[in-house]
């Protein structure tokens, strides 16, 4: 409900020195409905800066792909404006937007060779002969596929197909590259490798990319900024660190990384910190927005920020006594399922060495810093 005002504020917050020309794409009050009843995208306001890697992150059905399709020209907004380099493009067909698009399943043309696939966009831009050949080779070199030009897509591995799709989307030097879950079909190792590679290419060329994914770790790894979508709205738009450290609402806190969300009520403020009272009366020092005393709120606490109380932990304002319900060995770390504040459940993640002696059933003293306990009002 506050998203609109929030987004407006954010846009307004931009430093005054930033001119509109620095925005590659601007969505202004964009709405989209397919059936005339429910809005898939509700009042979207978003600016993509020139040269940035912006990820639209969200579960399926959150409106992120529809937003991307509207930007690509495959869907028309029901209302609102989309500006590309300051020009309204809602009515511009896709072929005239000069945007490179990498699709979920690559959409390589099966009846063409790799070279023909990559050369396809050049055909419509009057690039011919030696110049076209050179650019195709460069693009293939860039994605490390030199020498595979005569193959057909079906003869390539998933990763290679992905690279061809990337080369094809970049060969004509588009203003902007859009990617729709491009790594979803790859196995984990290859996916992580490609994440880095795509990011490197983007940085090297300084190209603007808008990337859609439902994988939060992918978003955190690659992005300059992340827009978290949920139910047709942007829940939070910020850089990965801020998103991780300072989630603005319960959805973001739960969606990005593991998180403990604990019910509490506001007790007051103390030295600039927010004091909350847990179910069993335990007081915790926290940071974040505060409301009026007695208001019920949520505290979010990352599992890895909850450590054993050794007494020496720097800035550990809160001490929590908890009973160990279960322990899971994860190699470099152990994961503890804990019960604290009466019957609230929470999870802690410790370095394996620290947790070695802990067994289920024992009681442990835990500690966490006030800065790691974030209050959420929404």
């Amino acid at each position: 409900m506050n998203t609109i005002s929030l987004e407006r504020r954010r846009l307004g917050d931009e430093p005054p020195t930033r001119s509109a020309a620095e925005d590659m794409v601007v969505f202004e009050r964009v709405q989209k409905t397919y059936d005339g009843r429910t809005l898939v995208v509700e009042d979207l306001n978003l600016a993509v800066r020139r040269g940035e890697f912006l990820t639209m992150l969200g579960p399926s059905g959150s409106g992120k792909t529809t937003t991307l399709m509207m930007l690509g020209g495959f869907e028309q907004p029901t209302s609102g404006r989309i500006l590309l380099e300051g020009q309204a493009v809602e009515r511009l067909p896709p072929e005239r937007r000069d945007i490179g698009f990498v699709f979920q399943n690559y959409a390589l043309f099966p009846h063409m060779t790799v070279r023909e696939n990559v050369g396809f966009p050049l055909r419509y831009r009057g690039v011919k002969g030696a110049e076209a050949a050179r650019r195709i080779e460069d693009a293939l070199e860039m994605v490390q596929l030199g020498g595979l030009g005569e193959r057909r897509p079906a003869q390539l591995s998933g990763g290679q197909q992905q690279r061809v799709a990337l080369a094809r989307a970049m060969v004509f030097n588009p203003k902007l590259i859009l990617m729709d879950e491009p790594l979803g079909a790859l196995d984990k190792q290859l996916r992580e490798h490609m994440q880095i590679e795509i990011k490197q290419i983007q940085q090297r060329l300084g190209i603007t990319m808008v990337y859609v994914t439902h994988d939060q770790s992918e978003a955190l790894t690659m992005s300059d900024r992340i827009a978290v979508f949920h139910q047709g709205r942007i829940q939070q738009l910020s850089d990965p660190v801020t998103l991780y450290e300072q989630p603005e609402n319960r959805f973001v806190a739960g969606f990005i990384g593991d998180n403990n969300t604990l019910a509490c009520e506001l007790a007051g403020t103390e030295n600039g910190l927010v004091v909350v009272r847990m179910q069993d009366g335990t007081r915790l020092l926290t940071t974040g927005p505060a409301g009026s005393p007695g208001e019920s709120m949520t505290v979010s606490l990352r599992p890895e920020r909850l450590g054993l109380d050794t007494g020496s932990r720097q800035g550990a304002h809160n001490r929590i006594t908890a009973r160990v319900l279960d322990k899971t060995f994860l190699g470099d770390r152990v994961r503890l399922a804990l019960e604290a504040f009466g019957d609230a459940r929470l999870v802690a993640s410790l370095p394996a060495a620290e947790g070695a002696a802990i067994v289920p059933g024992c009681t442990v003293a835990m500690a966490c810093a006030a800065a790691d306990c974030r209050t959420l009002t929404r």
Partner: protein
Amino acid sequence: MAQTMSLATPLSRPDLRAALRRAERPNRLRALALALPALLFLIVTFGAPIGLFLTTAVRNPEVRHILPQTVSTLDQWDGQGVPGEEAFAALAADLARAKENSTAAALGKRLNYESAGMRSRIMSVTRHLGSFADGPLAPQFIALDPAWADTELWAIIKRNGAPVTLYYLLTAVDLGQDATGGIGRVAADQAVFLDILGRTLWIAGLVTVATLLLGFPTAYVISLAPARVAGLMLLMVLLPLWTSLLVRTTAWVVLLQTDGVINQVLLALGLTTEKLQLMLTRFGTVTAMTHIQLPFTILPILSVMKSISEGQMRAARSLGAPPLAAFWRIYAPQTLPGVAAGCLMTFILSLGYYITPALVGGPRDQMVSNFIATYINRDLNWGMAAALACLLLVMTLSIYLAFLRIVGAERIKLG
């Protein structure tokens, strides 16, 4: 010890292959056992009868079985001049036996194919056998019909003493054998079949092109339509398949006849001033066949179109191709396997059409099948029917093979 192990462990390649075959054998046997009933059914009810039937295109038992003595006597004959008295005597003896077994007619019919009038010559000799006087038979034969003094007549009998004949197959391609056995074209007014063959190919081609022109856009619309509408449209495409071919053809007769629906509508709308001849024309035949074949062309195209992801056109557009270019360069080529399968199916099925040309077509639209049917039903000339069937089969197979060469087997998707 270790050395022995390392030598023994990796099997040499042929051994490995044999081992694989052994390991796979139970699976293969199970698969074979599952397919066996259908396979046997096909062999017994389809393969074997057709195979046997096709052999009648070269089988030539009549002269050999009915005139055994004559044939062996004619072995000595050099083909020059009328054969001697012994040939006439052998023929008389053979025909006497044929009379008893009432096989003379079959012989007469067979010889009549090669020379008109042979039937009545054989029958008349057979009837007169009893009234022949003692003494040389040759003059009495010749008195009955001077044709018995014709060397060509004897050459035909001699030639057909062989157990196989090329007569039917040659006739099916408008070739014939002369008295000396040389192969040449038959007289222009007897050259029927190449023309019919060409016409069959041409009509099948026209029908194929027409179904493609109508079917491709239809399949495209159905592939794009929302599921519920597409289901309804597909039903409408399939509906005609649930009606018998004969009923659909008869419906076309009702539409196309001179006093039929189409002419009445055209006249009522003032589009024409006189009734058009639509029945018994090539136009009518091709129209009716196109209607009947349409589903066979549409379905494979549709199934391929459905498998082409929406992303393909979008990708082409995003890369700069205008809608039409994206369609022709990206979409259309990918429908090729379906187009190929649909066209192949319609073309091959059209080659064998029978009822529709018979009812809607004129005499110039009768196809090979119509002649096969006539030879079987009316003339009892199974040899000729089999020869034409062979021709049709060879034509169909060679088109199929040519198609595989050009398009590639893996690129034809039937569904």
